[in-house]
């Protein structure tokens, strides 16, 4: 079985020496690892929640991701390369966990509870239904489109930042994001949700 995080991740500028703080991480110094955990575990958990799907336990996946991180972080030559590597590890762990959850996909008694956004007050039922439909629209999308949409439109990253994390050219990221927004708009509309304005709007264009 392929191991998540196997590939050696190189600094985009290999001639620059590693930063002392990053060397401390690679050498396993306790304070450096603790700082790494505090800084990046929230990111990993959020990726697991947003990209895992309904059958994946996000907590369990995030714990698995960080176990791999602790074991293999020495392979990452620089802090600049770490986000891309972390995303690749997360993606691999989620894929493994989705495969192991596959036998339960038709079992209505065993769904993992999704994160709940609970609001008090008026129109509780409507808010629940709307939330469910948004998740459903996202989960129906192709994985690579869901990833770019999550990084850019949910997490607010720029195209270059998302391209760096995904390990793709900026131009590819832009076109993929455009297609993702289009796909999401159509899927949201098919579920009776009003699609978003602006760059997310599909309007009346034909599917590319």
């Amino acid at each position, binding site marked *: 079985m392929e191991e998540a995080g*196997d590939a050696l991740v190189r600094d985009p500028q290999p001639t620059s020496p590693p930063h002392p703080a990053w060397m401390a991480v690679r050498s396993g110094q306790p304070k450096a690892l603790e700082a790494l955990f505090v800084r990046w575990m929230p990111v990993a*958990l959020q990726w697991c929640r947003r990209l895992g799907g309904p059958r994946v336990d996000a907590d369990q996946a995030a714990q698995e991701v960080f176990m791999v991180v602790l074991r293999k972080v020495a392979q990452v030559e620089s802090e600049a390369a770490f986000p891309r590597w972390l995303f690749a590890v997360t993606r691999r762990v989620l894929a493994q966990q989705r495969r192991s959850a596959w036998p339960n996909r038709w079992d209505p008694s065993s769904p993992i509870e999704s994160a709940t*956004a609970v609001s*008090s007050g008026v129109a509780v039922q409507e808010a*629940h239904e709307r*939330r469910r439909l948004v998740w459903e629209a996202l989960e129906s999308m192709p994985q690579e489109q869901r990833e770019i949409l999550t990084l850019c439109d949910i997490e607010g990253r720029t195209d270059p930042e998302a391209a760096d994390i995904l390990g793709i050219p900026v131009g590819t990221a832009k076109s993929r994001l455009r297609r993702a927004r289009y796909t999401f708009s159509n899927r949201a509309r098919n579920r009776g949700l009003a699609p978003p304005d602006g760059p997310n709007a599909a309007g009346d264009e034909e599917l590319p």
Partner: protein
Amino acid sequence: MTDPDDIFGTLRDETACTDRDLARLRALLPSDLSSVLRETRSDALPPTVAPMPPTPAPANRRWAWGLGAVAIAAAALFAVGRMQGPKDLPVALALSDADLGQRLSVGESVVLIPSGAGTVEGSTLSPRIAWEQGRIDVEVEPGKNIDLAVITRDAEVRVKGTVFTVERDALGTTVRVSRGVVGVRCADGPEADVTLDQEHLCLPKTAGGLLGRARALQGAGADPSTVLESVELGLDRSEAGSAVDGELQVMRMELLAGRGDRAEALTAALAYLAGGAALRQDEILQFARDLGQGLPGCEALVAASEAAQLQQEGPACAAALAASH
């Protein structure tokens, strides 16, 4: 048309990582993260096999782990008659530290006093409290057909008109009854009725949770056989080849070696290497060699430099280890 922030804003908020999430996940890892990178040691093994230590008295489960404890006490409160049956209305509440110590009414017959984090859904006659961490006091008026349940990751507790406590920490969920009967269904087991002065422990249901439990037990100095039970249960549930599975396997072989079961520890090490796991491979190779050091019948294993050689020489050495005890 809809603002994109409106359509994703809620989703962003509900999937964001809170400080509590971070604390909960941190508790599942060793207190010193660098210890995850330490070498698996066998040089502290006793020179001869020691007899199994006597089983100590059951460990006190009241360890505080910084996650807080969930305590729920259901008690009879009011004796107010009603002319009409209560309405069953939908409920959706998010409880946090902002509600600390406040008395929150759910319908006419339930009062919650939270000190932690969780959510309340369902309806006023059938509230479902999904409790993450901290403490919540629950007051339920008797005789009002209230079907209240408290759900943690490890257990589901149903009120049947009684007084009980639910405590959740890194070791699992413990239910103690001081009056009446409580129905408990563990996430991984059948339902059980817990009666007066009894307690019931629901273990964490996931491999990762059981690894956290094993580490918590080990950190508190629990008997190694108790730790080993948790490890082996975790291995039953872990995904083969996953990092958590690897950590459980290594913990198991260390525990076996620590109690003198070198043969079994070596067999476990060989099984780990045969599984093809890349994590910690060199370390486990050395661990396997160390187990056979100085023992007749293990010379070839000690001299092996590759996993394939180790696999070849391992069984003979394991047999020699077993025969030497």
